[in-house]
């Protein structure tokens, strides 16, 4: 199943990540997970579960999608990989004449949509998380 709304997330033991631009962002310590490398995937990004978690329950965010072949599709995706190894990227033909970077993770992976496709604003998910508002009410 495919998920496109802001805040949708997957958790798995192996994932296939495809994006026009995959870049390392930082090295963070997530509560209940441990030390993870954070990657930002910009422009036309996808994250698909190849291997489910064992046992199959969300470790980081309750409500994450956990089934095999569950896919996130969006403009930007943020990924946390519980490994010290940096990911190996390869360039593949992707959409139309555009190429993309692809990587397959082999450890705990958490991916979340940080920016959904702009052309689906009309189909807003009622549970979606808004961006930081300009001014929070006092």
């Amino acid at each position, binding site marked *: 199943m495919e998920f496109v709304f802001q805040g949708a997330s997957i958790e798995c033991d192996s994932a296939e990540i495809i994006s026009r631009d995959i870049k390392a*962002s*930082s*090295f963070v310590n997530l*509560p209940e997970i441990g030390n993870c490398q954070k990657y*930002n995937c910009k422009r036309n990004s996808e994250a698909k579960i190849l291997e489910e978690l064992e046992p199959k329950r969300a470790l980081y*965010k309750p409500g994450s999608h956990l089934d095999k072949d569950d896919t996130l599709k969006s403009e930007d995706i943020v990924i946390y990989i519980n490994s010290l190894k*940096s990911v190996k990227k390869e360039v593949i033909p992707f959409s139309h004449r555009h190429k993309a970077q692809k990587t397959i993770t082999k450890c705990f992976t958490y991916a979340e949509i940080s920016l959904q496709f702009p052309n689906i604003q009309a189909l807003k998910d009622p*549970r979606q*998380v808004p961006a*930081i508002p300009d001014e929070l009410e006092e």
Partner: protein
Amino acid sequence: MENNIISYRETGIDKFLGYNNQEKNFYRFKIEGRNQEEHFSITLTSNEIDNLFEQFRFHSEINIIKDNYCFTAINNLIKKNNFLQLSLQLSENQITEEDFEKELDENIGNYLIEMKNLVNSSELKIISNILLSIGKSFSVDEVSELFSVDLKSMNNELLTLYK
């Protein structure tokens, strides 16, 4: 009328007198200027004074939290910069994969950003105020990384605010 802060001398105040009437539980402050027209007095009850001090304490606590978040953001930017430099060295083949892992493992304090849970939604408002002062738009994951706030906890707080 503008509410600019002016120094003691600029006000022309010569005397500041405080009277305490314990029987009737109020305090009177008399402020005398150089001229008779500049004299005035304020009467406050002890409850009002307590409230004022409570507000001063509240604002000073807020400022301490705000300062802490600013220092955290600077520290995290330094750590992020260190990590990106290391990643760049790896991608340019200046170091091997083993060197990369060894450096992360041995000098973890230089690179690791610790994520913590938000204590309450008022902290989110403080973060929002800092971001407003910076004057740029940030995504939720950028804010989480900058201020060491766990992404999950931040999403939960945002959902609670927008319910």
